[in-house]
């Protein structure tokens, strides 16, 4: 039983060292590895806290599954969202997909209709061109 208490103290020591490492890392410029190493250190800290402090080491299976599920589902959210943002810069329609599309010149000259009213905003201020400029 004493040994468990000892492992708690040792874990705290390891966490402190990792904290020092992550701070030290921020003073050297090894981009883009600063980000990835920083996250790796944070993950190592998380695993230590979960494994020893939160007793995951001696937990039943369902508890470990619950712990993993939160992270897995968070990764679903991040990966699928990034699937959008990282591919936005790509060419919207590859050239060879367009072969059969007929170009209609008159489409280029359609003037957008001028709005006759101004869109009200929550602040009561009407939209003007400066709003467009800041986009």
């Amino acid at each position, binding site marked *: 039983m004493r040994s468990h208490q000892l492992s*708690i103290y040792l874990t705290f020591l390891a966490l402190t060292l990792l904290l020092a490492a992550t*701070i030290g890392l921020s003073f050297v*410029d090894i981009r883009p590895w*600063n980000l990835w190493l920083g996250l790796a250190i944070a993950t190592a800290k998380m695993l230590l*806290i979960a494994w020893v402090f939160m007793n995951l080491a001696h937990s039943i299976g369902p*508890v470990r599954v619950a712990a993993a599920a*939160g992270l897995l*589902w968070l990764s679903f*959210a991040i990966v699928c969202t990034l699937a959008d943002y990282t591919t936005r810069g790509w060419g919207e329609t590859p050239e060879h997909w367009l072969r059969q599309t007929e170009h209609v010149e008159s489409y280029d000259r359609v003037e957008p209709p001028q709005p006759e009213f101004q869109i009200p905003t929550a602040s009561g201020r009407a939209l003007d061109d400066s709003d467009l400029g800041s986009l």
Partner: protein
Amino acid sequence: MANEMSSEIAIPYDSADQQRSAATFGMWVFLATEVLFFGGLFVGYVVYRYEYPEAFRTGSAELNLWSGGAMTLLLLLGSMLVAVVDHLIAPSADNRSSLRGPVVRRLVATTVLGIAFLALEFHEYHQLIQDGRFPGHAFRLSDVSSDPLDGRSVEMFFTLFFCMTGLHAFHMCLGILLVGGMAVAIGRSEQPRSLANPMSVIGLYWHFVDIIWVFLYPLFYLVR
């Protein structure tokens, strides 16, 4: 141990062990929920850091790295104390020695560490608001020529900073109330060990809030 606690088993359960594992498992499921609660904000962080890396560098340089590091250390220390308390009070632990004193001392220390964390954090908020780093009409930034949108994307960094650390601070407040309340309850209790289940559950919550900060610290204070 199981026999000693049998008088306190709730209706749905057959044994104290079953009740304890339900409490622990339930808390872990709740923590998975909490991961996703912060998760929405982490998704936002990832997207905007991907879009505006320079703005995050500019913003991060405005934060006090050492104060953030000290806050991390306070939380880690508190977590260690809570882990020891949970170990001392667990039903499987050696129960010959009196445990009220050691447990209460550590819980009070954790509460104080938590309050110190919040004090440092609110001090930093105060400084940032004074310097005009709070998003909104008053936001201003001196040197912004190099950043996209004339530096307004730095405002995005600070919006995320205040939302995420603010949500974390809210969780800290709850944690401080729970741990402090636990210290009072154990201090008054005739049989501190009968509070082992709530203590474990509150401990798990405290560690979780700690883990969130472990990620927030490098993501906001240590951006290169």
